[in-house]
Protein backbone atom coordinates (compact mmCIF):
# COMPACT_ATOMS: atom_id res chain seq x y z
CA UNK A 1 0.00 0.00 0.00
CA UNK A 2 1.33 3.48 -0.76
CA UNK A 3 3.53 4.65 2.10
CA UNK A 4 4.05 1.22 3.60
CA UNK A 5 7.59 0.52 4.65
CA UNK A 6 9.13 -2.44 2.83
CA UNK A 7 12.75 -2.54 3.86
CA UNK A 8 15.29 -0.70 5.93
CA UNK A 9 18.97 -0.71 5.19
CA UNK A 10 21.09 -1.15 2.09
CA UNK A 11 18.42 -1.95 -0.48
CA UNK A 12 17.76 -0.80 -4.02
CA UNK A 13 14.29 0.58 -4.63
CA UNK A 14 12.88 -1.16 -7.71
CA UNK A 15 9.58 -0.88 -9.54
CA UNK A 16 6.82 1.02 -7.75
CA UNK A 17 8.91 1.82 -4.71
CA UNK A 18 10.87 4.80 -3.51
CA UNK A 19 13.61 5.44 -1.03
CA UNK A 20 13.77 8.01 1.71
CA UNK A 21 16.84 7.91 3.90
CA UNK A 22 17.72 4.26 4.34
CA UNK A 23 14.13 3.02 4.11
CA UNK A 24 12.27 1.78 1.06
CA UNK A 25 8.54 2.41 0.76
CA UNK A 26 5.81 1.26 -1.62
CA UNK A 27 4.17 3.78 -3.92
CA UNK A 28 1.35 1.60 -5.28
CA UNK A 29 -1.09 -1.02 -4.15
CA UNK A 30 0.55 -4.33 -4.87
CA UNK A 31 2.58 -7.25 -3.72
CA UNK A 32 6.02 -6.61 -2.33
CA UNK A 33 8.95 -8.79 -3.33
CA UNK A 34 12.49 -8.75 -2.08
CA UNK A 35 15.10 -10.38 -4.26
CA UNK A 36 18.57 -9.96 -2.84
CA UNK A 37 19.15 -6.26 -2.47
CA UNK A 38 16.32 -5.32 -4.77
CA UNK A 39 12.90 -4.44 -3.48
CA UNK A 40 10.00 -4.08 -5.85
CA UNK A 41 6.22 -4.10 -5.88
CA UNK A 42 4.07 -5.95 -8.40
CA UNK A 43 1.22 -3.52 -8.91
CA UNK A 44 -2.35 -4.79 -8.79
CA UNK A 45 -3.67 -1.88 -10.77
CA UNK A 46 -2.00 0.69 -12.90
CA UNK A 47 -1.91 2.38 -16.24
CA UNK A 48 0.42 1.93 -19.17
CA UNK A 49 3.56 4.02 -19.46
CA UNK A 50 5.19 3.56 -22.88
CA UNK A 51 8.63 1.96 -22.98
CA UNK A 52 10.77 1.88 -26.11
CA UNK A 53 10.63 -1.50 -27.87
CA UNK A 54 7.20 -2.31 -26.41
CA UNK A 55 4.63 -3.90 -28.67
CA UNK A 56 1.32 -2.08 -28.37
CA UNK A 57 -2.12 -2.24 -29.94
CA UNK A 58 -3.81 1.08 -30.46
CA UNK A 59 -6.64 2.79 -32.21
CA UNK A 60 -6.12 5.51 -34.77
CA UNK A 61 -7.90 8.64 -33.57
CA UNK A 62 -6.65 11.34 -35.87
CA UNK A 63 -4.87 12.08 -39.11
CA UNK A 64 -2.12 14.62 -39.55
CA UNK A 65 0.00 15.60 -42.49
CA UNK A 66 2.97 13.71 -41.15
CA UNK A 67 1.21 10.67 -39.77
CA UNK A 68 -1.52 9.11 -37.68
CA UNK A 69 -2.34 9.81 -34.05
CA UNK A 70 -2.88 6.59 -32.13
CA UNK A 71 -4.55 6.06 -28.77
CA UNK A 72 -2.41 3.44 -27.05
CA UNK A 73 -4.18 3.45 -23.70
CA UNK A 74 -1.43 5.58 -22.15
CA UNK A 75 -1.40 9.12 -20.72
CA UNK A 76 0.14 10.23 -24.02
CA UNK A 77 -1.18 9.91 -27.57
CA UNK A 78 1.29 8.21 -29.85
CA UNK A 79 2.27 9.23 -33.37
CA UNK A 80 2.79 6.81 -36.23
CA UNK A 81 4.64 8.78 -38.89
CA UNK A 82 3.90 7.96 -42.51
CA UNK A 83 7.58 7.19 -43.08
CA UNK A 84 7.43 4.52 -40.35
CA UNK A 85 4.30 3.00 -41.79
CA UNK A 86 5.28 2.84 -45.45
CA UNK A 87 8.99 2.39 -45.05
CA UNK A 88 9.54 4.87 -47.87
CA UNK A 89 9.02 8.54 -48.48
CA UNK A 90 5.43 9.48 -48.79
CA UNK A 91 3.79 12.46 -50.37
CA UNK A 92 0.35 13.15 -49.07
CA UNK A 93 -0.44 15.24 -52.11
CA UNK A 94 -0.05 12.32 -54.46
CA UNK A 95 -1.36 9.52 -52.29
CA UNK A 96 -4.26 9.17 -49.92
CA UNK A 97 -3.22 8.26 -46.36
CA UNK A 98 -6.64 6.95 -45.46
CA UNK A 99 -6.47 4.28 -48.14
CA UNK A 100 -3.78 2.66 -46.04
CA UNK A 101 -4.86 3.36 -42.46
CA UNK A 102 -7.94 5.33 -41.56
CA UNK A 103 -9.32 6.82 -38.37
CA UNK A 104 -10.89 4.07 -36.31
CA UNK A 105 -8.53 1.36 -37.51
CA UNK A 106 -6.56 -0.70 -35.06
CA UNK A 107 -2.83 -1.06 -35.46
CA UNK A 108 -0.25 -3.34 -33.94
CA UNK A 109 2.90 -1.28 -33.57
CA UNK A 110 6.15 -0.96 -31.73
CA UNK A 111 7.28 2.03 -29.69
CA UNK A 112 10.52 3.37 -31.13
CA UNK A 113 10.93 6.59 -29.19
CA UNK A 114 9.57 8.01 -26.00
CA UNK A 115 10.87 10.23 -23.22
CA UNK A 116 9.67 12.88 -20.82
CA UNK A 117 9.69 15.60 -23.42
CA UNK A 118 8.26 13.84 -26.45
CA UNK A 119 5.16 11.84 -27.18
CA UNK A 120 5.70 8.20 -28.10
CA UNK A 121 6.54 7.43 -31.73
CA UNK A 122 5.45 4.14 -33.25
CA UNK A 123 6.56 2.01 -36.16
CA UNK A 124 4.84 -0.75 -38.11
CA UNK A 125 7.92 -1.67 -40.15
CA UNK A 126 8.71 -4.99 -38.49
CA UNK A 127 7.05 -8.26 -39.31
CA UNK A 128 3.71 -8.92 -37.70
CA UNK A 129 3.04 -5.22 -37.27
CA UNK A 130 0.50 -3.13 -39.08
CA UNK A 131 -3.20 -2.72 -39.43
CA UNK A 132 -5.45 -5.22 -37.72
CA UNK A 133 -7.87 -6.74 -40.18
CA UNK A 134 -9.68 -9.27 -38.02
CA UNK A 135 -9.82 -10.84 -34.58
CA UNK A 136 -11.16 -10.16 -31.12
CA UNK A 137 -9.86 -7.67 -28.61
CA UNK A 138 -9.49 -8.21 -24.89
CA UNK A 139 -8.49 -5.46 -22.50
CA UNK A 140 -6.70 -6.24 -19.27
CA UNK A 141 -5.00 -4.09 -16.66
CA UNK A 142 -1.56 -3.33 -18.13
CA UNK A 143 0.15 -4.43 -14.92
CA UNK A 144 -1.17 -7.94 -15.43
CA UNK A 145 0.30 -8.40 -18.89
CA UNK A 146 3.38 -10.26 -17.57
CA UNK A 147 1.03 -12.80 -16.09
CA UNK A 148 -0.80 -13.29 -19.38
CA UNK A 149 2.49 -14.03 -21.08
CA UNK A 150 3.81 -16.21 -18.29
CA UNK A 151 7.37 -17.17 -17.57
CA UNK A 152 9.22 -17.21 -20.88
CA UNK A 153 5.86 -17.16 -22.61
CA UNK A 154 4.59 -20.34 -20.97
CA UNK A 155 1.05 -19.09 -20.47
CA UNK A 156 0.64 -17.59 -23.89
CA UNK A 157 2.12 -20.62 -25.63
CA UNK A 158 -0.26 -22.87 -23.77
CA UNK A 159 -3.16 -20.74 -24.83
CA UNK A 160 -2.08 -20.44 -28.44
CA UNK A 161 -1.62 -24.18 -28.78
CA UNK A 162 -4.75 -25.01 -26.81
CA UNK A 163 -7.06 -22.85 -28.86
CA UNK A 164 -5.30 -22.90 -32.21
CA UNK A 165 -5.32 -19.11 -32.45
CA UNK A 166 -2.84 -16.35 -32.94
CA UNK A 167 -2.58 -14.11 -29.91
CA UNK A 168 -0.85 -10.76 -30.02
CA UNK A 169 -0.25 -9.23 -26.61
CA UNK A 170 0.21 -5.48 -26.45
CA UNK A 171 2.15 -4.28 -23.43
CA UNK A 172 -0.48 -1.57 -23.08
CA UNK A 173 -3.09 -4.07 -21.92
CA UNK A 174 -4.75 -4.75 -25.24
CA UNK A 175 -4.71 -8.30 -26.55
CA UNK A 176 -5.69 -9.39 -30.02
CA UNK A 177 -6.94 -12.90 -30.63
CA UNK A 178 -7.44 -14.22 -34.14
CA UNK A 179 -8.04 -17.74 -35.30
CA UNK A 180 -9.64 -19.86 -37.96
CA UNK A 181 -12.60 -20.93 -35.87
CA UNK A 182 -14.75 -18.33 -34.16
CA UNK A 183 -15.57 -20.65 -31.25
CA UNK A 184 -11.87 -21.04 -30.53
CA UNK A 185 -11.48 -17.28 -30.48
CA UNK A 186 -14.30 -17.07 -27.97
CA UNK A 187 -12.66 -19.74 -25.84
CA UNK A 188 -9.35 -17.87 -25.86
CA UNK A 189 -11.14 -14.68 -24.83
CA UNK A 190 -12.84 -16.40 -21.88
CA UNK A 191 -9.55 -17.84 -20.73
CA UNK A 192 -7.83 -14.46 -21.00
CA UNK A 193 -10.55 -12.90 -18.91
CA UNK A 194 -10.08 -15.64 -16.34
CA UNK A 195 -6.35 -14.97 -16.29
CA UNK A 196 -6.99 -11.32 -15.56
CA UNK A 197 -9.41 -12.14 -12.77
CA UNK A 198 -7.13 -14.66 -11.13
CA UNK A 199 -3.79 -13.16 -12.13
CA UNK A 200 -2.60 -13.07 -8.53
CA UNK A 201 -3.17 -16.72 -7.63
CA UNK A 202 -0.75 -19.62 -7.72
CA UNK A 203 -1.01 -22.52 -10.12
CA UNK A 204 -2.88 -20.50 -12.69
CA UNK A 205 -1.12 -22.12 -15.62
CA UNK A 206 -2.35 -25.54 -14.48
CA UNK A 207 -5.90 -24.33 -14.12
CA UNK A 208 -5.82 -22.75 -17.55
CA UNK A 209 -4.64 -26.07 -18.97
CA UNK A 210 -7.45 -27.90 -17.23
CA UNK A 211 -10.07 -25.46 -18.44
CA UNK A 212 -8.83 -25.74 -22.00
CA UNK A 213 -9.02 -29.53 -21.89
CA UNK A 214 -12.49 -29.51 -20.43
CA UNK A 215 -13.84 -27.01 -22.94
CA UNK A 216 -12.35 -28.86 -25.85
CA UNK A 217 -13.74 -32.14 -24.56
CA UNK A 218 -17.28 -30.83 -24.54
CA UNK A 219 -17.02 -29.55 -28.06
CA UNK A 220 -15.63 -32.60 -29.79
Amino acid at each position, binding site marked *: *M*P*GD*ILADGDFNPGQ*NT*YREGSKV*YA*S*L*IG*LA*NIAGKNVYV*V*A*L*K*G*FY*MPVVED*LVIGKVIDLRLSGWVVDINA*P*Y*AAVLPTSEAFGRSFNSRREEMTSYIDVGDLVVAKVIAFD*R*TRDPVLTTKDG*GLGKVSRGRLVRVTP*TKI*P*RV*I*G*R*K*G*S*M*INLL*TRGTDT*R*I*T*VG*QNGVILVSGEKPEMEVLAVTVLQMIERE*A*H*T*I*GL*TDRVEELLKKKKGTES
Partner: protein
Amino acid sequence: MSQTKSKRLINEEGLRIDGRKFDELRPIKIEVGTLEKADGSAYIEWGKNKILAAVYGPREVHPRHLALPDRTLFRCRYHMAPFSTEERKSPAPSRREIELSKVIREAVEPAIFTELFPRTAIDVFIEVLQSDGGTRCAGITATSLALADAGIPLRDLIVACAAGKIDGQIVLDLDNIEDQKGEADLPVAISPRTGEITLLQMDGIMSREEYEKALNLAIEGCRQVYAMQQEALKRKYASEEVGAKGDDEGEGLS
Protein backbone atom coordinates in the same frame (compact mmCIF):
# COMPACT_ATOMS: atom_id res chain seq x y z
CA MET B 1 -23.68 31.42 21.04
CA SER B 2 -23.34 28.71 23.62
CA GLN B 3 -23.57 31.21 26.49
CA THR B 4 -27.32 30.99 26.16
CA LYS B 5 -27.56 27.87 28.27
CA SER B 6 -30.89 26.93 26.69
CA LYS B 7 -29.22 24.57 24.26
CA ARG B 8 -25.95 23.00 25.24
CA LEU B 9 -23.66 21.09 23.00
CA ILE B 10 -22.26 18.93 25.78
CA ASN B 11 -24.54 17.54 28.49
CA GLU B 12 -23.84 16.89 32.17
CA GLU B 13 -22.36 13.47 31.51
CA GLY B 14 -19.92 14.98 29.05
CA LEU B 15 -21.68 13.57 26.01
CA ARG B 16 -22.31 15.55 22.85
CA ILE B 17 -25.62 16.05 21.05
CA ASP B 18 -25.24 12.84 19.07
CA GLY B 19 -24.07 10.95 22.13
CA ARG B 20 -20.38 10.90 21.37
CA LYS B 21 -17.59 11.40 23.88
CA PHE B 22 -15.24 14.36 23.39
CA ASP B 23 -12.61 12.26 21.61
CA GLU B 24 -14.91 10.07 19.58
CA LEU B 25 -15.19 10.06 15.78
CA ARG B 26 -18.46 9.65 13.95
CA PRO B 27 -19.00 6.24 12.39
CA ILE B 28 -17.06 5.97 9.14
CA LYS B 29 -17.70 3.67 6.22
CA ILE B 30 -15.34 3.60 3.25
CA GLU B 31 -15.60 1.84 -0.07
CA VAL B 32 -12.93 1.81 -2.78
CA GLY B 33 -13.53 1.37 -6.49
CA THR B 34 -17.19 2.35 -6.44
CA LEU B 35 -17.34 3.81 -9.91
CA GLU B 36 -16.88 1.62 -12.93
CA LYS B 37 -15.95 4.27 -15.47
CA ALA B 38 -13.45 6.27 -13.44
CA ASP B 39 -9.82 5.21 -13.33
CA GLY B 40 -10.05 5.27 -9.56
CA SER B 41 -12.81 6.06 -7.10
CA ALA B 42 -13.82 5.98 -3.47
CA TYR B 43 -17.00 6.54 -1.50
CA ILE B 44 -17.02 7.61 2.10
CA GLU B 45 -19.78 7.89 4.67
CA TRP B 46 -18.51 9.91 7.58
CA GLY B 47 -21.37 10.36 10.01
CA LYS B 48 -24.06 11.91 7.87
CA ASN B 49 -21.61 12.99 5.19
CA LYS B 50 -21.80 11.06 1.96
CA ILE B 51 -19.06 11.80 -0.51
CA LEU B 52 -17.89 10.33 -3.80
CA ALA B 53 -14.42 10.94 -5.18
CA ALA B 54 -13.48 10.04 -8.75
CA VAL B 55 -10.03 10.16 -10.31
CA TYR B 56 -9.24 10.33 -14.02
CA GLY B 57 -5.76 10.12 -15.39
CA PRO B 58 -2.97 10.63 -15.83
CA ARG B 59 -4.31 11.70 -19.20
CA GLU B 60 -3.72 14.31 -21.83
CA VAL B 61 -4.31 17.87 -20.75
CA HIS B 62 -7.20 19.78 -22.18
CA PRO B 63 -6.95 22.68 -22.81
CA ARG B 64 -3.47 21.96 -24.10
CA HIS B 65 -1.74 25.15 -22.94
CA LEU B 66 -2.24 24.25 -19.29
CA ALA B 67 0.13 21.29 -19.53
CA LEU B 68 3.26 21.53 -17.41
CA PRO B 69 6.53 20.48 -19.05
CA ASP B 70 8.06 18.94 -15.95
CA ARG B 71 5.21 17.36 -14.02
CA THR B 72 1.59 16.42 -14.09
CA LEU B 73 -1.14 18.96 -13.65
CA PHE B 74 -3.23 18.02 -10.65
CA ARG B 75 -6.74 19.39 -10.83
CA CYS B 76 -9.39 19.09 -8.21
CA ARG B 77 -13.04 19.96 -8.13
CA TYR B 78 -14.98 19.92 -4.93
CA HIS B 79 -18.68 20.21 -5.53
CA MET B 80 -21.76 19.95 -3.39
CA ALA B 81 -24.89 18.48 -4.91
CA PRO B 82 -27.90 20.83 -4.80
CA PHE B 83 -29.66 18.32 -2.54
CA SER B 84 -26.75 17.86 -0.15
CA THR B 85 -27.81 20.56 2.29
CA GLU B 86 -31.01 21.43 4.09
CA GLU B 87 -31.69 24.37 1.81
CA ARG B 88 -31.18 23.79 -1.86
CA LYS B 89 -27.71 24.81 -2.84
CA SER B 90 -27.18 26.41 -6.20
CA PRO B 91 -25.24 23.97 -8.34
CA ALA B 92 -22.88 26.71 -9.51
CA PRO B 93 -19.54 26.60 -7.71
CA SER B 94 -19.65 28.96 -4.76
CA ARG B 95 -16.78 30.90 -3.26
CA ARG B 96 -16.52 28.24 -0.57
CA GLU B 97 -16.36 25.35 -3.04
CA ILE B 98 -13.63 27.05 -5.03
CA GLU B 99 -11.66 27.53 -1.83
CA LEU B 100 -12.14 23.92 -0.78
CA SER B 101 -11.09 22.70 -4.22
CA LYS B 102 -7.87 24.60 -3.76
CA VAL B 103 -7.12 23.48 -0.21
CA ILE B 104 -7.89 19.86 -1.03
CA ARG B 105 -5.65 20.01 -4.06
CA GLU B 106 -2.84 21.48 -2.01
CA ALA B 107 -3.35 18.97 0.76
CA VAL B 108 -3.19 15.92 -1.52
CA GLU B 109 -0.69 16.98 -4.19
CA PRO B 110 2.44 16.56 -2.00
CA ALA B 111 1.73 12.83 -1.85
CA ILE B 112 1.70 12.33 -5.63
CA PHE B 113 4.82 11.64 -7.67
CA THR B 114 3.83 14.39 -10.09
CA GLU B 115 7.26 14.52 -11.71
CA LEU B 116 6.83 11.03 -13.18
CA PHE B 117 4.21 12.06 -15.72
CA PRO B 118 5.11 15.36 -17.34
CA ARG B 119 2.58 16.95 -19.71
CA THR B 120 -0.35 15.03 -18.31
CA ALA B 121 -3.25 15.86 -16.03
CA ILE B 122 -4.83 14.06 -13.11
CA ASP B 123 -8.38 15.18 -12.48
CA VAL B 124 -10.21 14.60 -9.25
CA PHE B 125 -13.90 15.18 -8.80
CA ILE B 126 -15.27 15.25 -5.29
CA GLU B 127 -19.01 15.18 -5.15
CA VAL B 128 -20.72 15.80 -1.83
CA LEU B 129 -24.06 13.99 -1.90
CA GLN B 130 -25.00 14.75 1.67
CA SER B 131 -23.20 17.07 4.03
CA ASP B 132 -23.01 17.41 7.77
CA GLY B 133 -19.84 19.30 8.63
CA GLY B 134 -16.29 18.18 8.03
CA THR B 135 -16.74 17.49 4.33
CA ARG B 136 -13.29 18.76 3.42
CA CYS B 137 -11.68 16.20 5.71
CA ALA B 138 -13.84 13.40 4.38
CA GLY B 139 -13.17 14.64 0.84
CA ILE B 140 -9.40 14.53 1.33
CA THR B 141 -9.59 11.08 2.86
CA ALA B 142 -11.64 9.77 -0.07
CA THR B 143 -9.46 11.50 -2.66
CA SER B 144 -6.25 9.83 -1.57
CA LEU B 145 -7.99 6.46 -1.67
CA ALA B 146 -9.33 7.12 -5.16
CA LEU B 147 -5.82 8.07 -6.31
CA ALA B 148 -4.42 4.85 -4.91
CA ASP B 149 -7.22 2.94 -6.61
CA ALA B 150 -6.32 4.58 -9.91
CA GLY B 151 -2.85 3.09 -9.65
CA ILE B 152 -1.15 6.47 -9.35
CA PRO B 153 2.16 6.28 -7.48
CA LEU B 154 1.83 7.95 -4.10
CA ARG B 155 4.26 8.71 -1.31
CA ASP B 156 1.56 8.19 1.25
CA LEU B 157 -2.18 8.14 1.85
CA ILE B 158 -3.14 11.60 2.99
CA VAL B 159 -5.75 11.57 5.70
CA ALA B 160 -7.69 14.38 7.33
CA CYS B 161 -9.73 14.96 10.43
CA ALA B 162 -10.94 18.00 12.35
CA ALA B 163 -10.98 19.01 15.99
CA GLY B 164 -12.61 22.03 17.55
CA LYS B 165 -13.91 23.76 20.61
CA ILE B 166 -17.51 23.57 21.74
CA ASP B 167 -18.89 24.71 25.09
CA GLY B 168 -15.34 25.54 26.11
CA GLN B 169 -14.17 21.99 25.54
CA ILE B 170 -11.82 20.63 22.93
CA VAL B 171 -13.53 17.87 20.95
CA LEU B 172 -12.80 15.69 17.95
CA ASP B 173 -14.62 15.67 14.59
CA LEU B 174 -17.30 18.36 14.70
CA ASP B 175 -20.59 17.84 12.93
CA ASN B 176 -22.58 20.63 11.36
CA ILE B 177 -24.36 21.88 14.50
CA GLU B 178 -21.19 21.79 16.54
CA ASP B 179 -19.37 23.65 13.81
CA GLN B 180 -21.97 26.38 13.66
CA LYS B 181 -22.75 26.79 17.36
CA GLY B 182 -19.32 25.97 18.66
CA GLU B 183 -16.42 28.31 19.17
CA ALA B 184 -13.78 26.95 16.84
CA ASP B 185 -13.06 24.37 14.16
CA LEU B 186 -9.61 23.11 13.16
CA PRO B 187 -9.40 20.80 10.15
CA VAL B 188 -6.03 19.07 9.76
CA ALA B 189 -4.65 16.79 7.04
CA ILE B 190 -1.50 14.80 7.59
CA SER B 191 0.76 12.40 5.80
CA PRO B 192 0.66 9.61 8.38
CA ARG B 193 4.03 8.14 7.48
CA THR B 194 6.01 11.30 8.17
CA GLY B 195 3.53 13.18 10.30
CA GLU B 196 3.77 16.17 7.97
CA ILE B 197 0.79 18.47 8.01
CA THR B 198 -0.56 19.27 4.54
CA LEU B 199 -3.68 21.16 5.55
CA LEU B 200 -4.28 23.32 8.56
CA GLN B 201 -7.13 25.74 8.78
CA MET B 202 -8.82 27.35 11.73
CA ASP B 203 -12.13 29.05 12.03
CA GLY B 204 -12.96 30.65 15.38
CA ILE B 205 -10.97 31.56 18.43
CA MET B 206 -8.87 29.33 20.66
CA SER B 207 -6.11 30.07 23.13
CA ARG B 208 -2.66 28.77 22.39
CA GLU B 209 -3.03 25.88 24.83
CA GLU B 210 -6.40 24.98 23.38
CA TYR B 211 -5.00 25.12 19.89
CA GLU B 212 -2.20 22.74 20.76
CA LYS B 213 -4.60 20.37 22.44
CA ALA B 214 -6.96 20.48 19.45
CA LEU B 215 -4.15 19.93 16.97
CA ASN B 216 -2.93 16.86 18.81
CA LEU B 217 -6.46 15.54 19.10
CA ALA B 218 -7.03 16.06 15.36
CA ILE B 219 -3.80 14.25 14.51
CA GLU B 220 -4.87 11.42 16.78
CA GLY B 221 -8.18 11.36 14.87
CA CYS B 222 -6.29 11.25 11.55
CA ARG B 223 -4.42 8.17 12.73
CA GLN B 224 -7.71 6.44 13.48
CA VAL B 225 -9.10 7.34 10.06
CA TYR B 226 -5.84 6.20 8.44
CA ALA B 227 -6.36 2.73 9.89
CA MET B 228 -9.83 2.67 8.32
CA GLN B 229 -8.41 3.85 4.99
CA GLN B 230 -5.92 1.00 4.94
CA GLU B 231 -8.60 -1.44 5.88
CA ALA B 232 -10.83 -0.25 3.04
CA LEU B 233 -8.03 -0.71 0.52
CA LYS B 234 -7.27 -4.15 1.89
CA ARG B 235 -10.90 -5.14 1.58
CA LYS B 236 -10.94 -4.15 -2.09
CA TYR B 237 -7.68 -5.85 -2.92
CA ALA B 238 -7.81 -8.55 -0.24
CA SER B 239 -8.60 -11.44 -2.54
CA GLU B 240 -5.59 -10.43 -4.59
CA GLU B 241 -3.32 -10.41 -1.58
CA VAL B 242 -3.97 -13.97 -0.49
CA GLY B 243 -1.20 -16.37 -1.38
CA ALA B 244 -0.24 -14.22 -4.29
CA LYS B 245 3.51 -13.95 -4.76
CA GLY B 246 3.57 -14.38 -8.53
CA ASP B 247 5.28 -17.57 -9.61
CA ASP B 248 5.88 -16.57 -13.15
CA GLU B 249 6.61 -13.42 -14.93
CA GLY B 250 7.91 -12.58 -18.33
CA GLU B 251 7.79 -10.23 -21.22
CA GLY B 252 7.71 -10.19 -24.97
CA LEU B 253 5.07 -11.09 -27.46
CA SER B 254 3.36 -14.19 -28.59
